[in-house]
């Protein structure tokens, strides 16, 4: 971590959260310096959402220390929540109420002094000025997502928690949201974003933390993680299952790292292979964060 990033927006030390016999968060250490976008990348059930709920005081830790924006959690969580914005995974807008009222309600909950000005600013951000008087029920899916994001920003928070911000959205809406999130990041807002979409993390995150089974198992800038864990290139071989297991066995016998990639077998770090080790029909491509993710978590990525 660079020296000028002395102030951490989020600091978690040895955090444990159990649900009965299930350990959702298992000794988690996590620092998010001010002004960066950290992508929390992990498969479903890795503990990402629980981590988010711990940060808003909606889950209480069984052990460990938590700080957000200098406030101890969960004891001082209300003060922390006043300064952070949350964009939930599930759309929980009030559907019968107008766009404008949805924003005004949250401006009041966050004790924003000038509700009217905050609502106007949020409407501009979500590009919904022309729809301010419409019920949320009448909005398209993309508009609802933009509104949900703008609602979380109504009080101009220093820190924003995005929980799977584009889960289940079609590609066009996703791109639209990415632009909005990227603008926030450029404006200096600290962002903690959980996602299980590799592309989302690659595009938006300054740093990525790979989480599985309630812990961070690796962290760094996307390019660093790729260089460290998989190398420069990946070779993919397509074919019937028999052929794939043959390729896999052969590559493993030569000491190469292999992962399944949907209908193919991927040999990662193929630039390190001896001549002849990579089948001739293999497709060579640049290594990606997806390769890192699958190598580290053992799960196929989305």
């Amino acid at each position: 971590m660079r020296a000028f990033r002395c102030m951490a927006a989020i600091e978690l030390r040895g955090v444990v959260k159990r649900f009965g016999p299930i350990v959702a968060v298992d000794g988690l250490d996590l620092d998010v310096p001010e002004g960066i976008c950290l992508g929390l990348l992990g498969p479903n059930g890795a503990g990402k959402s629980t981590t988010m709920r711990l940060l808003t005081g909606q889950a209480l830790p069984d052990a460990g220390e938590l700080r957000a924006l200098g406030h101890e959690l969960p004891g001082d969580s209300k003060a922390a929540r006043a300064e952070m914005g949350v964009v939930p995974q599930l759309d929980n807008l009030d559907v019968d109420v107008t766009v404008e009222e949805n924003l005004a309600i949250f401006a009041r909950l966050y004790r924003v002094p000038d509700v009217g000005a905050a609502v106007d600013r949020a409407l501009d951000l979500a590009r919904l000025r022309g729809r301010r008087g419409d019920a949320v029920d009448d909005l398209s899916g993309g508009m609802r997502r933009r509104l949900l994001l703008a609602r979380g920003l109504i009080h101009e928070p220093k820190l924003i928690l995005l929980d799977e911000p584009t889960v289940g959205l079609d590609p066009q809406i996703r791109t639209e949201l990415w632009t909005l999130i990227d603008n926030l990041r450029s404006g200096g807002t600290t962002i903690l974003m959980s996602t299980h979409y590799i592309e989302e993390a690659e595009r938006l995150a300054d740093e990525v933390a790979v989480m599985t089974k309630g812990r961070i198992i690796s962290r760094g800038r996307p390019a660093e993680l790729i260089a460290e864990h998989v190398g420069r290139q990946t070779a993919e071989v397509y074919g019937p299952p028999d052929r794939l297991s043959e390729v896999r066995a052969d590559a493993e016998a030569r000491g190469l790292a292999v992962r399944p990639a949907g209908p193919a077998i991927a040999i990662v770090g193929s630039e390190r292979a001896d001549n002849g080790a990579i089948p001739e029909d293999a497709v060579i491509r640049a290594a990606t964060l997806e390769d890192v993710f699958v190598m580290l978590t053992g799960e196929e990525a989305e």
Partner: protein
Amino acid sequence: MGSQMRRLEPAAIAGVMSREMANFRTYWRGTTFSSVLEPIVYLLAFGLGLSATLVGEVGGVPYVQYVGTGMVATAVIFSSALPAMFGTFVKHRFQNTYDAILAAPVDVEELVSAEMLWIGLRASVYGCVPLLVTIAFGLNPAFGMLLVPLFCLFTALGFAGFGVAMAASVAKIDQFNYVTALFVTPLFLVSGAFFPISGLPEGLQVVAQLNPLHQLVELVRGAAFGFAAIDLVRFASLVAFALALWRIAIWRMELRLID
């Protein structure tokens, strides 16, 4: 930094209530229509049907006025316990509304207090409707009736707390059938709204005294036909009922909403 924010902040409670008001503006017509029509239908059916053939008056009060004043209590329980049960459950489970509110600087205590206060205020207005209808049916207005909204408020707060606590305790929405059959319907029938509880077996009379709705019925009749000293005790018991259910609702909701 690190400054502890206060509990039960008026701004947080007002914010949550403003959400309820914004939603209410989209459905108030239907709720208000049924709350006005219902006592009229009851008074026509009971008053004109029953009093013409079976009961003329109860304790010197014409049966229409007896039922009309009693119906304040039924209006209160049906506009407090039921909306609290179903509304809380739907907002928590189906709409994820509480997740959004609790991510803002609002605690469960403030959330529950605001929801109860909103339902309580609303039910105290709807509770007065049967009284106004009964006045239209010939009941003489009395100054004491100005206290009826206050009696309704504390009763409604208690039943709102009951509904919230139930919503936080059931696993599935259809379990409300048990709650309605075991609590709401018996409480409303054995409240003295439709017949005097003095007609019940002695054991049941004691149980009926523990029914907050019975205390409300007696207070409303006191307001219409003259108070007695015991009415102060009745009112105090409604305040105690509201306070107890307020804390129980917060306790149940904290268990449900905070992991």
